[in-house]
């Protein structure tokens, strides 16, 4: 119900979002007159022509206007701010994202777009573009084995002989590899924490990658096929005791899967 004001005393225009199952997102802007004839999507940190997208606004007669982000529109991975044509920010209104809560894309590159409110309530869109994509699912923890078992789904690539999951220390060269089992698109692996924790002197973050076959590029394992744009504090896992501290799976601010190793002095 609140109505924030601009410095000139005009209410900040507010946009409601509706996500459709086919990937389309519609933006309904109240106070449409204030926003001009289009919405601008600007990729944060981007300077090129591909980092700005103009979405025409069409009036619905009662002062509201609608812009449509088609699934075919190209948006690079990152955070896109939604602005009025004047560059003025929009307030994030009601975001009806039920259609993207449990996604399972059938074909093509995985392109995920989640409208979200920034910390100060402005509307932005979080985009991921992955081809291929390794989606993390359930993570089982086996305290007696000090290990985790990850289940996932691979999109846009085939699991071959010799597929491996690789834990790579974020700030270093160390890599630890375990075999991956597969069944169609589904993959799974068990990663013991012991070797990761070995010799750790401080908190360490190990990134998890999937290499579907020996001669192909690695794929970052992430969890992006839903409406939770920031999983860090929501998808939280219990810590396991290691010889020298604790280990637990976690997600980064980009929703990529990691293992966090801590040491107890």
């Amino acid at each position, binding site marked *: *119900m*609140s*109505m924030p004001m601009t410095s000139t005393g005009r209410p900040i225009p507010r946009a*409601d979002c509706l996500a459709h199952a086919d990937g389309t997102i519609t933006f309904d802007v109240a106070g449409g007159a204030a926003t001009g004839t289009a919405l601008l999507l600007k990729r944060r940190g981007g300077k090129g022509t591909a980092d700005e997208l103009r979405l025409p606004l069409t009036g619905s007669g009662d002062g509201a206007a609608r812009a449509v982000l088609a699934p075919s529109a190209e948006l690079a991975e990152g955070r896109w701010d939604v602005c009025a044509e004047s560059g003025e920010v929009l307030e994030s209104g*009601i*975001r*009806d*994202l*039920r259609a993207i*809560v*449990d996604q399972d894309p059938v074909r093509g590159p995985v392109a995920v777009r989640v409208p979200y409110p920034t910390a100060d309530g402005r509307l932005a869109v979080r985009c991921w573009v992955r081809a291929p994509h390794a989606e993390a699912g*359930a*993570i*089982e*923890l086996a305290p007696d084995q000090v290990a985790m078992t990850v289940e996932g789904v691979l999109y846009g690539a085939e699991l071959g002989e010799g597929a491996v999951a690789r834990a790579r220390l974020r700030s270093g060269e160390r890599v630890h590899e375990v075999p991956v089992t597969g069944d169609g698109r589904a993959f799974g692996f068990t990663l013991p924490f012991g070797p990761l924790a070995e010799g750790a002197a401080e908190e360490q973050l190990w990134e998890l990658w999937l290499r579907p076959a020996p001669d192909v590029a690695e794929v970052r394992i992430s969890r992006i096929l839903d*409406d*939770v744009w920031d999983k860090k*504090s*929501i*998808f*939280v*896992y*219990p810590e396991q005791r290691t010889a020298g501290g604790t280990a637990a799976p976690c997600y980064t601010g980009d929703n990529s899967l990691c293992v966090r190793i801590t040491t107890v002095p």
Partner: protein
Amino acid sequence: MRISFLLHNAYGIGGTIRTTFNLAHALAERHDVEIVSVFRHRDEPAMGAPAGVTMKHLVDLRKKSPGYDGNDPLAKLPAKVFPRGDGRHKQYSRLTDVRIAAHLSSLDADMVVGTRPGLNVTIARQTRRGVVRVGQEHLTLDSHGYRLRREIAHRYTMLDAVTTVTEADARSYRERLKLPGVRIEAVPNSVPAPAVAPADCTSKWVVAAGRLTRVKRYDLLVEAFSKVVAARPDWRLRIYGSGDASGNEKQALRALIDERGLHNHVFLMGPANPLEAEWVKGSIAAVTSRLESFGMTIVEAMRCGLPVVSTDCPHGPAEIIEDGVDGRLVPVGDVDAIADALLALIGDDELRQRAGRAALAASARFDPAPIAERHEALFTELVARGEGARSRGALREVLHRGRSALYDKAYSLRYLAADVIRRGKKSA
């Protein structure tokens, strides 16, 4: 009618403010409505001013305002008229006493409506003759401390009507207090229709939302969901909300989720506002509270088309949910019963979707328009009792004033005695 609401602070955020705004806005279509806020600490109401309603304030707490009242010496002295039993007493002062008294004794309205016990008591004591006095109870009689309940019993005799948000609480007022001639009526809170389309109840999510405090008993919901997952691992639970001044159960719930190995199935989502877009991601809503003065979240979820599994706790749920039709009522604190009720809805898509549609239809009775009509009917009747009633009221007033003086003494003596006894017990 000219209707004047008296609100603690119309510029903050809260359930009473929202409800009062909804009602004032609806009444303003046909009546002259004002909201008088005791305090004003910001320029614009945080929840948006209701259209068509005149906003006034009595004490200005905006430091930059030319009318700033914070330096008034009276603001440093404790309130004498505003009752000490009201939890907000510390915020009131001799200054608020003086301003409220001046407001109530010169009120240019047919009726004044109080929105919390301390203000209702003040209205009962100080409103000028000829103005109809209504006291609204947004919590429950039970939820107030001993001291405030005594004050209510004693002072509400001078009101024309008391409204509660549940029939159960109205019964408490009727049966436990002697308020002769005071009309006591239950009118539930209103919830506007959501801006999103209703849920179709096909997703495999259970949704709960509220403050993460002890009284909400989310621990029971997590325990129950452990049983749900054992039978139906394809279903998951989202709990929205955060702690508040009275506590934060997040860490305890996190630990319980870890202990039960539910980290793939139960998610603490943090706060979300508005909630309607989150309800519709679910197919069932769950409420496992020990206490719900009304049960606003139950109505919100139903208005989004979700069947609700709720504990049959005092006071609201049983007056909102029709057990077996648009949701389920289960015994308070019964983990197995909660799990069984959830599983029954989870296991039968047709039943769940039918219950969701029933919830959507049944919850339309909480729309602001019909709820405002019920208030309006009561208000109209009270004002129309007219001169006769008013002179009877006046007679009652004289009688009560006489009785009041006696009461005052007996009351303070009794109160003092009780206080001494309690203190004795505490030190023993």
